[in-house]
Each structure stands twice: as structure tokens, then as C-alpha cells.
């Protein structure tokens, strides 16, 4: 599998540049977090999505601000791709009162209601029915919104995955299930978790749900398959399942590389590194004359300035007060 299998002649150069910019931005934000993590000031687990940016960007580029997205422990990319505020995300990771969850949630519980990012949870699979529920709720209310839920490959092993798909299909709900298959659940490979005969597409098809599998490192392919799903749903044809293969570059949780500890090989990592979603797309755009080195330089500078400002905001923000500990137990 290559990293950018095909170009899309119909897509405007402007949109292509936007997709590139969004991926580059997520990449650089995640790298900046990794770089500063050793300072021990971001005192919560972080699950970086470096290597997996194309899925977040390709999916969210098909959604409107009114559509809903929900995600997992590895949600930074999804939050940012949906338009979540960077400052509020970093402040949340720093445990500050200005964080998107006011310091109550941390990296694993991001939220930005202004852009329809309804939340993320790290209990594997337990956000899936929440997304089916928001789709159920919006359809009960007669709203024309799509709910999208990101999950990892291990979430498809949870009982609640089948339960949620079953109901989504029964009620023909406007929900897209996006599985990011990065082959590992922490250190446990697919081979110890799923029989080799297992095929999630056949599985969801048997529940009456359409689906596609694709290259998760190719942002155009992700974009096109998601577009197909969105069109299907807007026509009222019910839920859709998308599964994309990709690879997490860093350790499951934290800023480091861990190819040396023995659960995967350096060679395997390098193979995926060659298929870097950002670099491959960059190469293609340059070759087509859509993107120049100068533009890349300008984009990088703009992103880095934004990142600097956001870190400054997060670091200089006050911690929540003791009084705030007791706030938000109950809603009034």
C-alpha cells in the first residue's frame, strides 16, 4: 500500500492545500507536545496521533460545524480537525481553568461545543453508543445532522460495538463509524485479539450497514470514502462504517518512540514511516505544482506561531481554584 494512491482531479487545489495544512498543523502540534512533555508540566496521559493525521482530516473535511464528532483517548487530531480551539486543548492538558473542560478532563476528555466536538472518552468503545444516541436524538428532533464516532481497532471487539451498530441499523440513524486500525491495542497485536478470518466489513454488512475499507494514510482516499458515506446518510440511507489502516508512530501513551521494547519491529515502523501521510501528500502536491516549498515554509511558520501562542496561553493560565473542585457535580 502506498501512501497516496490516487490524485483527485476534481478536487480544487484550495481544498487540497487545506487538507495538507490541517494535517501539518496536527503533526506539528503533536510534536510540540512531545517535545515539551518531559518538562512534567502536562500532568496527564497523552496519546499522540502522529502518523494517523490523514483520517482525522479527511473525515472532518466532509462535515459541517453543526455535525457532531466524538472520539477516544487518542483524540487530539479529531478535535483539531473538527475545529476545536487549540488554546483550550493545550490549557486542558496543562490542567488549567481555561481548558476546554476546565481542567476536569485532561487530554482524554476534550470538548468544543462551538464546533460540534461533543467529547472523547478513553474506555474502549464506550463512546460508540453515545454517538448513536446523539444521532438518535437529532433524528427524533428532526435535525439534519450527522454524528461521527472515531474508534480504534480494539473497540470493534467490544460488545457495545455490535450493540450500537445493531440499533443504528434498526433505526437507520445518521451516524458514521470510523475505525482507525493501527494494528495494536497498546502492545497487543491484532493476531492475539481477532481470528484471521474476521472481517469487519462482512460483519457490519450482515447488520445491514454499508461500509468501506481504505488507506488511512492517504488523505484523499479518506476524504472520498467519507464523502460517499456522508452522501449516503444525507439521502437518509442510514449508518455507514469506514475502516482505515494506519500506524501510530510513537508509544501508545506518551511522547517517546518504543520500537525497541519488543512488541513491534523497527523495520515495520520504518516501512510505515515511508508512508507518512503528511510527507506523501506534500510530495504529490509539489509534483503537481499545487504546493511550493515557499508555501510550505509559510504554512509552517504560521502554524508554529499559533502553537507558541497557544502554549504561552496554556502555561500562563491560572490553575482552577479549590472552589472549582466542587463545581459541576450536578447540573442545575
Amino acid at each position: 500500500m502506498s501512501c497516496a494512491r490516487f490524485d483527485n482531479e476534481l478536487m480544487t487545489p484550495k481544498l487540497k492545500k487545506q487538507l495538507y495544512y490541517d494535517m501539518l498543523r496536527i503533526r506539528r502540534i503533536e510534536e510540540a507536545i512531545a517535545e515539551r512533555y518531559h518538562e512534567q508540566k502536562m500532568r496527564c496521559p497523552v496519546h499522540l496521533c502522529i502518523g494517523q493525521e490523514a483520517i482525522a482530516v479527511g473525515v472532518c473535511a466532509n462535515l459541517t460545524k453543526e455535525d457532531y464528532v466524538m472520539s477516544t483517548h487518542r483524540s487530539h487530531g479529531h478535535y483539531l480537525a473538527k475545529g476545536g480551539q487549540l488554546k483550550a486543548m493545550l490549557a486542558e492538558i496543562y490542567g488549567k481553568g481555561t481548558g476546554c473542560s476546565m481542567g476536569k478532563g485532561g487530554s482524554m476528555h476534550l470538548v468544543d461545543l462551538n464546533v460540534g466536538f461533543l467529547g472523547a472518552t478513553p474506555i474502549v468503545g464506550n463512546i460508540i453508543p453515545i454517538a448513536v444516541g446523539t444521532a438518535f436524538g437529532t433524528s427524533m428532533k428532526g435535525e439534519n445532522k450527522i454524528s461521527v464516532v472515531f474508534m480504534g481497532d480494539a473497540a470493534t471487539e467490544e460488545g457495545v460495538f455490535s450493540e450500537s451498530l445493531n440499533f443504528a441499523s434498526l433505526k437507520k440513524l445518521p451516524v458514521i463509524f470510523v475505525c482507525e486500525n493501527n494494528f495494536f491495542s497498546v502492545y497487543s497485536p491484532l493476531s492475539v485479539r481477532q481470528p484471521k478470518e474476521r472481517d469487519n466489513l462482512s460483519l457490519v454488512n450482515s447488520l445491514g450497514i454499508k461500509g468501506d475499507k481504505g488507506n488511512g494514510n492517504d488523505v484523499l482516499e479518506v476524504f472520498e470514502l467519507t464523502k460517499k458515506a456522508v452522501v449516503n446518510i444525507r439521502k437518509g440511507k442510514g449508518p455507514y462504517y469506514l475502516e482505515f489502516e494506519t500506524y501510530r508512530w510513537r508509544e501508545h501513551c506518551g511522547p517517546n518512540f518504543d520500537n525497541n521494547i519488543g512488541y513491534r519491529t523497527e523495520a515495520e515502523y520504518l516501512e510505515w514511516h515511508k508512508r507518512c501521510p503528511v510527507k506523501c501528500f506534500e510530495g504529490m502536491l509539489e509534483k503537481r505544482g499545487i504546493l511550493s516549498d515557499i508555501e510550505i515554509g509559510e504554512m509552517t511558520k504560521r502554524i508554529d506561531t499559533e502553537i507558541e501562542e497557544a502554549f504561552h496561553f496554556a502555561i500562563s493560565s491560572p490553575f482552577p481554584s479549590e472552589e472549582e473542585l466542587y463545581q459541576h457535580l450536578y447540573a442545575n
Partner: protein
Amino acid sequence: MTKNPMEREITYAKAVLEATAQCMAEDASVYIMGLGVPDPKGVFGTTLGLKDKFGDRRVMDMPVSENGMTGIAIGSAIVGLRPIMTHQRVDFMLLALDQIINNAANWHYMFGGKMKVPITIRLLIGRGWGQGPQHSKSLQSIFAHIPGLKVVMPFTPYDAKGLLVSAIRDDNPVIYIEHRWLHNIIGEVPENIYSVPLGKARIVKEGKDITIVSSSYMVLESMKAADYLDKDGISVEIVDLRTLQPLDRESIINSVKKTGHLLVVDGACHTAGFAAEIIATVTEKAFSCLKSSPQRLTLPDLPTPTSPALANFYYPRTINIINTARSVFRLPERTEEELGITHDQPLDVPDKSFTGPF
């Protein structure tokens, strides 16, 4: 309770049904789902006729997927609906603990108050007719232990209606626990919609010698015991908790300050049960008022046995409450024969209307 002959009397089950119907009529965002909700038996009569009134979109049966469907209800609540979920036995709902504890209870807090989860989860508990280890647990202390949940256990038909209305109108997840043996009891219930505030206990009966704190079905047993104790010169005050979380500590403490003695009667297992919380509260806040060590009467630390013979030994009854209260005053035990307590029906059913199966 003084009776107004003009007041209407209905069963507890009817009161639950009426609260549901009136809340659905008042607020289009309220819907109810659960296994068997629209079926001919209507969850022991508590959902009968709702589908005809409100249609099958708002009165739903569901796939047998307790955890997934709870998550779906939570998701719908996040976007503005007010789901009521029913479980015919608390034991089935254990499959949904992840969604209730990890998601519903935390959601408002962990996202900094940005979203709310107004969901009511009706759990039926009960006993008798050989329901056994997986059909008759009482797990209120588990739910009361989870920050973010509210837990109510109505005893009277009046409270069943008023507390359910409050639960549905509340913006938080509320665990509403109804004891199967209360469904057939009759009490005064106004026809109009009204609410009973969450978090307020009720003094069922005033007395001066000992406070009995109880909830749900065990309040009924406590009231029977109080009649006999009163005749023996022990004046009992009964506090019906109504809500376990948030707990009305003030009403409990005020009562014990008056009587100086405390007995907690809880229909769940002993160790780490809710009775321990009541006793801890009183010893922390009103230790100097206590004239004797507080007592608790609970189920033994055992799974529920199925055989009626074993169940007879398992459940505390009126006589056990009487004797535990008497022991506080160092009075000798009395027997059912002495007191004239007779059982005109087997002990595994609440009244003659129960002929099984149920």
C-alpha cells in the same frame, strides 16, 4: 397519615404510570424505553397504555443490549432529550454499569459543566417467588457511592409519583428504584402533576424513644414493627429516606438528637451497605446525642437463595425489627406468637394477589 376522604387512592404502579404520562404530556422531549415497555404486561402495569397515547417513537421497546442502549439514551440526553429507561430487574442493568458509571455520572463534571445528562433509570428490585440470586438483588449502595448520580427509593404511591416527576425533570442522571412488593399498595395520590423534591427525607411517624431510618419496602415493615413497639411503650420515630443521594443528613440527625437511639433497616446486604453510611453519619455528627450504640438490620452477606424455605430465613421481618429495637433498651426478645403476629399467606409473596409467576 391523616386521610382526606375526598382524596383519590391509587396503586403505586398506577402512580408511576401517571407520573410518566403526565411528564410526557408536559414535555415533548421525554421518551421512555426499555424491554417490554409497550408489551401487554407493561412492566408490571407501570407503562400500560403509554404507546397508544404517545406513539411508538416515544414509547419504545428495545434490543436486548442494556449497555449499548443506555449509552444511546445518554447520547440522546446530551442533545436535549429526556429518556426514561426501565429495567424489569436491577440485575439486568448491571450490564450497563460502564455507561452509567463511566459516562452518565461523570459527563457533566468531566467536561467542565458544558453538557448535561437528564436521564431517569427505573430499576425494579424485589423479592419472593424464588427470584433467586440473579433476579432480586438490592444494590442501592453501589449507585449511592457514585458521585454524579442521584438515587431515589420511594415508599408511598404519593412519593412514587412526585419523585418520578422530579427525577424526569432533573437535569442529572437519576436512579429510581422501585420495590416490586410496593407496586400493589394503595395510597392517596393527587390527580394533577406535582413534584416531591429530591434530597428530602420524610418523617413517616413521629416518636420520642428511637429513630428507625429506612427506605422503600422496608419502611412498610418498620411501620408494622412500630405499631407493636408503641403498644409495648416504645415510641418510634420513622424516617423514610426517599432519596439516598443526595442524602438528607439533617433530618436523620435531628431525629436522633430527639430520640437518642438509632436503628437502620435496609433491604440490602450488610457489609458496606447503605445502613453503614447512616450510622457513620450519625456517629460523626451527633455522637454525643447517642444513648446506645446504633443498630442495623439488613440482609445477611449472602446471595439471595431461591427456595422459599431458605428465603424465609434470609429476609428480616417485622419481628426482627421489633426485637432489634427492644435489644437497644435491653428488653428481652418477643415472639410472633406472643405478639399475635400471624401470616395468612406464604412469606414469599407480599399479599394474596400474588399467585406467581411474577
